[in-house]
């Protein structure tokens, strides 16, 4: 068994039960307890049960508030968060506050504000791993493939980060027409300038 280092599950925008009923079976089978050390969730979990399920998956669960949180959750989550994993500072924000939505220049300014190496954001329901000025912007998309007015044909997706010191391998899992597709990106922490 290869050592992946610390595993960080990056998911978000489940919107259960308002926009989707469940996490697709093929994904659910992969999300087993005690594998991941962290869960980073971009928000819009949808319901308390979903949040509790996340908490059973990993010891450290970080959630930020989305734009469609149900009333009882909205106060529970912060707008943005910073999580330290390995040598990486990972910033987390839902993304509806970043205007225009999904704009990388705008995201970069949030990234600088949080002073992080990786910025995780959601809201667009389109997964992305983008290098921007030597840093990384990661968007896990929606794991349920929930409807979004911003995006047609939402592809269910999530991201897994395997962090080893200053290196990270980023796996993007997508469900395209019911078939699982995985793509991989590797990058290292930028030396401070």
């Amino acid at each position, binding site marked *: 068994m290869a050592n992946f280092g610390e595993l960080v599950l990056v998911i978000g925008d489940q919107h259960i039960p308002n926009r989707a009923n469940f996490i697709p079976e093929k994904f659910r089978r992969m999300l087993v307890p005690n594998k991941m050390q962290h869960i980073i969730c971009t928000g819009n979990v949808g319901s308390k049960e979903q949040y509790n399920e996340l908490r059973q998956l990993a010891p450290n669960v970080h959630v930020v508030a989305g734009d469609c949180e149900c009333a009882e959750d909205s106060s529970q989550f912060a707008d943005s968060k910073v999580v330290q994993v390995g040598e990486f500072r990972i910033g987390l924000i839902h993304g509806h506050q970043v205007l225009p*939505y999904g704009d990388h220049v705008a995201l970069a300014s949030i990234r600088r504000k949080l002073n992080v190496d990786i910025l995780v954001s959601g809201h667009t329901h389109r997964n992305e791993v983008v290098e921007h000025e030597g840093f990384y912007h990661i968007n896990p998309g929606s794991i349920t493939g929930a409807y979004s007015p911003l995006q047609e044909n939402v592809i269910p997706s999530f991201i897994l980060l395997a962090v080893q010191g200053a290196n990270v391998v980023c796996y993007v899992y997508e469900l395209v027409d019911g078939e699982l597709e995985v793509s991989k990106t590797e990058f290292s922490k930028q030396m401070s300038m």
Partner: protein
Amino acid sequence: YPNNANSTLQNLMGDLTVNVNSDIFSTDTTGANPTTTATAAATSIAQVPIGSVQDSYQFVLTNFIEMNKLWVRLQHLPGDAKTKETKIRRERERNELRMMVGTNLVRLSELEGVTSTRYGTIILPRIIDQIVACRDPLAQAYLMDCIIQVFPDEFHIQTLEIILSVCPKLRDKVNIRTILQSMMDRLANYYADELLLNDEEDTEGVKTSVILDSFEMFDECIRSVIEARGAKVTAKEVIRLEASLLGFSLKCYPGRLDYINRCLGVCASSLKGHGPSHGSTQPATSASGAAAVPIQMDEIAIKELETLLSLPLETMGLNVLDLDQYSELLAFLPLRNRKMIGVQLLKVLDTSGEKMTELSELEQLFVIISPLIRETSSSTSESKDQSPQMFEQKELISKLIHLLYNDDTDVHFELLNFVKKHLLSGGEGYQISSHTISPLFYSTMKLLTRVQELEFPAPIVQQPEEEEEEVVVEDEPIVEQEETVQEGAIVEEEEKIEEEQLDDIMQSNEQVDAGQDVDAEEDKDDMKESEDNEPVEDVDAEEVKDEMKESEDNESVEDVDAEEVKDEMKESEDNEVVEDNEQVSSEVDGAVLEESVEGDDDNNQDTEKIETSEDSKESDNEGIEDQETFEMKMTSASNEEIKADVIASKPAEEEEAAVVSNVNVADNDTSVNVNEQETKVDLFEQFNKGMFDDEPITPIFEKQTNCRKIFLFVQKLLSMIEVADPDLCFTLRLHSAIAANRCVVIAQERSSTSGDLSTVAYEFITEAFLIYEREITDALAQRNAITKMIGILLSCSCFDKNDYEALITKTTQYAARLLKKTDQCSMVLMCSHLFFKLGENGYQNPQRALECLQRALKIADMCATSNPSNLQLFVDIFDLYVYFFENSNPVITDKFLSGLIALVNEHITTIGSLNSVIQGTKESFTQTVRYIERKKTVDGRFTNIVCIVPN
């Protein structure tokens, strides 16, 4: 004295048992070599086969019968007082002795060499005769149970009929259900084992086939028992019996709906008081008992019925809807229990993930789950206690909505419509509405993405001619059909009519757009109409005018209808609108635009408004002045532009408006209808022309459900939660707007006409704004709402310049009027995005964007003096300056950036002591400054920025 008798009896019975024991022992030894010894013995002594199997069971049987007689007689010992206590005491004593009688049966079962035939023809009948003859409930129940437990499954399978035939003859006190239940359990287990082993030979094949018939026997048995006992049988008894049978049936015959139906049928008919419907024998029993009176159900019976009805859910899921009697039986349950059933059904559906495709299915389903919708709304006091349950129910209903699916978008829409009707019919069910409307909304939006694909399809070159012709011809009949189909739904009717009118308007709109083939006559009308002040000569035109006025003045005109007409006309009628201010401003639609126009014509009103809103918070004098001037600037600037634009676009819009009103007349006036028909024919010709030219033709949209209709549906849906959940309503309206925007974009991409969907988008946004004004009062909620407004407006590209400016001006006003200065600052800052949209054809007014930034800066300055921690605001503003600079906003120069860097540095040094918040701010500021320094090396534009990194 009685004690004495008892002990003697015990002695006697003990003796007998000893005898039996020794006897069994001997047979057992012979049985060790059954083939050799036993058969040899049988042949040698033919007549009285002593020591043979026959001899043994004969003996045990006799023993059994005698013992049983004694045992039964024990109940009625002479000299006993006939009191209840003695009776109970005797029963207790007898119960202690029962093992001794039962042991006989055990011995019988242990005899080797007893074949099933022998058992069926000799042994069992004799035992049963004795059981029936003794007429003692205790003995009957115990011995029946003994038989079932001690003899092997194979015997039971072959003798099932005999055993079951006894049941009706047993005393009423005997619990038939336990007897049948244990029999069924045995058979079911046996059957399951057989299936599992699956290596049965031919003979065993026969046995399983016998098992397959057993349902009939059990069913027959239960019916005859119920019949035999007549009125004495209680509801819970019947239900329990049928529940056992149902369970058995589900285990052994999955998929046999008729069996389940029969179980339910017996229940239903006996609950109704008719007894089991059983042909000719029926009248006799029903005549004797009180037949017509339904059996009263007590708590237990209700519980049992609930269990019975839950049984098939597990295995059958949605298929229970196919059961005829299911909903009928459900009606016997009180609401609370029906709710439980509903919840269970929904859970099963959820786990199965099976799609609901047919309306009929859904209708049946809603019969079952309707209590979930209704009760939650009616008893609000109760709902508070059960809030976790309530929540679960809502979630289940939400999930159900997502299970609706049909390939045909029309049918799918019908499904959604049906759900909507039901959710809203829950009375004052706002609580449930807001939770279930959200999924219904998104489900509808999902449907929209499919409909928009159909309505605005990607162009396909070459299209068969005939198909097209047919489509055009069929257009009308389809509409008519729809009318008849939905006539039954009273609730829908009103909506229906509106929709049709709308459709008509839409249609002719599209026709005009596509064809540009307006009748000469119509043209004339338009001309006349546009010259408002000139005397009207044409009768038609007069009618048109009347019609217009009516729709304006008459408040009773249907909401949507009025909105519709208004929307088309509003621009062309600017003057009228201002005149009729009171009426128009009470209307929902177009409020924003009108207001801004108002502001143009009479500024007094606008300033008045500002003043009143400011009066309440006089604490900050400096701020008020500032704010006012700022707002004034905002409104006047945008209004000038609007004015110019309105003038420019007036002629075109007037024409459109006139056409619309014409059509409106056509709806009511048959004489004008001819005109419409003609246009249609023209259009038809055009299609043909297009075909001959061999141009790419897009497939015709044949569905009745178009995007327009869906938006209308959503509109209604959302208006239901306007009061109950304004925040949600606000968000969903914005989402509708952006969905409408997508439709327009797609239509444009595929060069097809989207009708007036951009108006729809505009309406949704203005309505959202109205909710914001009226209902959203919490500071945080306001902040969130404005953030959403800006985000959505940035994502919408379908508005023309006027509309867009009206909307963003309004948004900026909202931002500037927020209560907290810090909120004002960050929101006004955010609004700057609105004035400088990126991308092609994005709206750009660089100066106004800068004004927003400067405005934010002023507010930030005020905030920073009151609390140094607000330094973050400066950094945020700085970030946005950098953002615009990077995105080449021409008026934002490097000087601004240098100035800001200096300013922030100054602030940091004056603050001196740094708490953690300011430290964080400083860090993020440093980040940005460093970023600019890095940028200098690659981008020449940055070189002149003076960077100072704070120490």
